[in-house]
């Protein structure tokens, strides 16, 4: 009995000691303890965005959550910073991919630090910053729980500093796991997670971070196969980004990080074949008399893609890649296959084995190309007088509209409703193919046509716009006397 009392006494004495040791060391935390410990690791990240929207160059202050993940000041943020934000409110508006600069972190205890952008992970919509001021060491930081088995119904905790409305007081957000997704794996549906929490960590009851709140993108056409059918925030397990974090943390950093910052905003170079596929389940394989072990059934081949060049057709079945069985038997397995393909360098030769119903096999080599430009990374141009921003035609858009790959034009990316282009009735998403009789095939010809229009100053300017397979004309009637104001 005495031993038990001593043990309890010792345990009670330990609590404050553990609390001082920082988050993530084993013992269960009360909410108060967790709040106190974790508050020092999260910061409001303030940054400057410069982007083209509605035909005008805009500069806004943006805000997001950041969490310090290493003693040296590596900071995890949401990839949302790459989207134009409206007036710092966090609401995403249309516009070009912003140039990012001026990152500064504000902690709830009054500390502030400058930071630079290191990298983005396109698939996961996450980014990393490095604190540069002062020379970073000894930063309070979170600890990841590397082995975590999530369960449906599990309660997690999150904190956000994102809102300025609370005088930089961290806001506690209880979050629950309400589903574990099969596709993609290690992604959870969350209850209680609003878009305010994007980028915020998810802590377990012992003060260790098991994942982050994220919004997993994006279009499968740009090579991203991570497409949960959830539109809102999801929980992203640490397992999904552990490798990326480890690689980034291990990279040597130069003093001048400007090159890294510029590179971080470029689209990653990844292998792309131009095919869509589904799993070959065992029942279907047996029915088709195809060997056991899985594979992929090609559902669509992108025109003019490497897969088409190699002679791949819809309903072809691929069972081996470089001599290894493609073990894809259910939806949950498809992501691994996508990741495997994208692990190749553009230009690599991928050797596939194709199997016909009945079992006859043949070989097929596909030379991987580089992932086509995504809508996010597409180049934009603006015409400030007409208050319109356009972007290059991307494969995403062409396939979405069911248009052939060589479709010329530029996509209306944004326009001001009361601007000259907007007043014509034109809408975002249309493909401009002709302006005042001048063919528009790309961004350069768009600029050239607009230049001629500005020089000639016609009373009416006709835009020929394709939307899906239908076309329509819009006529802008600018007041040319306002032209000098914008030049």
């Amino acid at each position, binding site marked *: 009995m005495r031993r038990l009392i001593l043990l309890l006494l010792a345990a009670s004495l330990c609590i404050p000691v553990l609390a001082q040791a920082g988050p993530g060391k084993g013992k269960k935390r009360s909410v108060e303890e967790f709040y106190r410990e974790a508050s020092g690791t999260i910061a409001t990240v303030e940054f400057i965005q410069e982007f083209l929207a509605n035909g005008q160059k805009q500069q806004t202050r943006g805000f997001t959550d950041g969490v310090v993940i290493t003693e040296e000041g590596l900071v995890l943020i949401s990839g949302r910073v790459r989207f134009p934000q409206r007036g710092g409110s966090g609401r995403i508006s249309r516009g070009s991919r912003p140039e990012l600069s001026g990152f500064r972190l504000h902690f709830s205890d009054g500390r502030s630090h400058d930071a630079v952008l290191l990298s983005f992970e396109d698939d996961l919509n996450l980014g990393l910053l490095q604190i540069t001021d002062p020379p970073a060491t000894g930063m309070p930081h979170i600890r990841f729980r590397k082995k975590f088995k999530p369960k449906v119904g599990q309660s997690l905790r999150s904190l956000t500093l994102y809102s300025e409305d609370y005088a930089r007081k961290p806001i506690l957000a209880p979050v629950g796991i309400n589903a574990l997704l099969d596709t993609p794996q290690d992604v959870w549906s969350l209850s209680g997670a609003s878009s305010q929490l994007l980028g915020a960590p998810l802590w377990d009851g012992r003060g260790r971070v098991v994942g982050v709140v994220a919004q997993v993108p994006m279009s499968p056409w740009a090579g991203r196969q991570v497409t949960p059918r959830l539109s809102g925030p999801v929980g992203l397990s640490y397992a999904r980004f552990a490798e990326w974090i480890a690689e980034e943390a291990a990279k040597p950093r130069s003093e001048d990080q400007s090159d890294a910052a510029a590179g971080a905003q470029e689209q990653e170079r990844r292998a792309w074949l131009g095919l869509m596929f589904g799993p070959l389940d065992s029942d279907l394989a047996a029915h*088709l008399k195809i060997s056991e072990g899985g594979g992929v059934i090609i559902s669509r081949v992108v025109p003019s893609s490497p897969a088409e060049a190699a002679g791949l057709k*819809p309903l072809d079945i691929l069972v081996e890649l470089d001599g290894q069985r493609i073990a894809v038997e259910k939806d949950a397995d498809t992501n691994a296959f996508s990741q495997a393909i994208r692990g190749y360098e553009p230009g690599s030769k991928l050797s596939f084995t194709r199997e016909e119903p009945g079992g006859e096999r043949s070989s097929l080599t596909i030379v991987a190309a580089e992932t086509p430009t995504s809508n996010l990374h597409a180049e934009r141009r603006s015409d400030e007088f007409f208050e319109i921003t356009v972007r290059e035609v991307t494969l995403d858009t062409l396939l979405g509209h069911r248009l052939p790959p060589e479709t010329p034009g530029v996509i209306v990316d944004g326009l001001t409703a009361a601007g000259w282009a907007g007043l014509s009735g034109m809408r975002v998403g249309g493909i401009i193919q002709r302006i005042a009789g001048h063919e528009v095939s790309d961004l350069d010809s768009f600029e050239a046509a607009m230049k001629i229009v500005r020089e000639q100053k016609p009373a*009416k300017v006709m835009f020929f716009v394709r939307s*899906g397979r239908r076309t329509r*004309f819009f*006529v802008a009637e600018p007041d040319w006397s306002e032209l000098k104001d914008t030049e």
Partner: protein
Amino acid sequence: MLLGMIRTLSVFLFVALGFLCLNSGTSFAKNSDLQQTIFDVQESALSALVNIQPITETFSRGERRKQASVGSGFLIDTKGHIVTNFHVAGKASKLMVTLFNKERIEAELIGEDPQTDLAVIRIDPELVKLHRMKPLRWADPEDLEVGRFVLALGSPLALARTMTFGVVSNTDRYLPEGMSLPSGERTGDFNTWIQTDAAINPGNSGGPLIDLSGKVVGVNARGAMFADNIGFAIPAKTANKVVHSLIGQGSVSRSYTGVSFQPLKDWELLFGLEAPRGALVSSVASGSPGERAGLQAGDLLLSYDSVDITVRFEEELPGLYQRLADTPINSAVPLQVLRNDSELQLELTTQATGKLSGEKFEASAWGFTVEEITEQMAYERELLSSDGVLVKGVLTGGAAQRGELSRGVIIESIDHEPLVSLKQFEERYTDITNSSPAEVLLQVRRYESKSWVLLQFEGGQEVGQ
């Protein structure tokens, strides 16, 4: 004490209100010609009004289901023909009609026209005589004007024999292209609409909008959601013509060109014209008669079949589409077109507008329903061809749902045998279900994507649901 005061006050209010009602009612009845006219019109028109209870079949949930609804209609002649909306009586498998005197009788479908949302049904002419029903007559379209008093008769929310009162708010309302009926057919291309503030609610559909001479100015068809007193009726001018065709031929024959237009507005100078002339070709469907004629988006159609065309405002578009549709089918029509400052002479050969929707079939043992793909559906939906059958619905818990078949895909083959038509599908289905296989393999397509669906049946073929 307090209770007593409340009671006294209540009695006072009741008496006061009753007095006000009585007073206003009496003065109106005695002094208002308008009130008397409304009474007269109501009396003369009511016998033509019917409440329609169609039984339709739906296939959208993967099985054939019967569905009951309520709409309105009105007698148009002594032969028992009743006008209503396509979305009320179209494709009905059974039609019951309640007359003004609450007698309930059966009716038959005579013809339907989804493109104007009109249908004609018929009751026994002997019953028309027996019940002394007086047919309504169409109003002269020339008499239609904004501000004219109108009455909407019908069964809003199934409340039979309801009359509402208002004015014609607009005689020529253009509603944007691309409206679809609940059953999916495109509608509204060939008419503008009468807008009225006489209350029109669900159930009013198919009922008459009549003027104070008791003549039909329009067929009530739709209301604006989240708005007060904005209803729309198909004008008598359009309805009269369509109803005439439906009674005579059972259908409306129209030519299809595949050309979409925009109004020229005041853009004539952009085409080097001094005065507005022509209609702007905005889009030409691939494979359509318009494309075969060489028409291109951006052309200005100056004349059609040697008749000059001018469409300056969008309200004029339905008239142009009607003119094109009225062209005899398979006729070669000369076109005068302005393209890049040059006038071209082209020739367009019209073709018949096909069926906007196909026949349906329930594959009950497989747990889904299919629809025939008509040529016209292939045009409208931009499908690659009309081969195959369209999956209309997938039954929850059936073999198709377990095999992840989804609505909207096209079945291209069954057990590796290509499928072209619904008839083939029905034959294959019958053959296969008779042999009770454990598995059936479907090859399906959604636009350019293809996949396989394996239907599996535990212990052989499933029993139809």
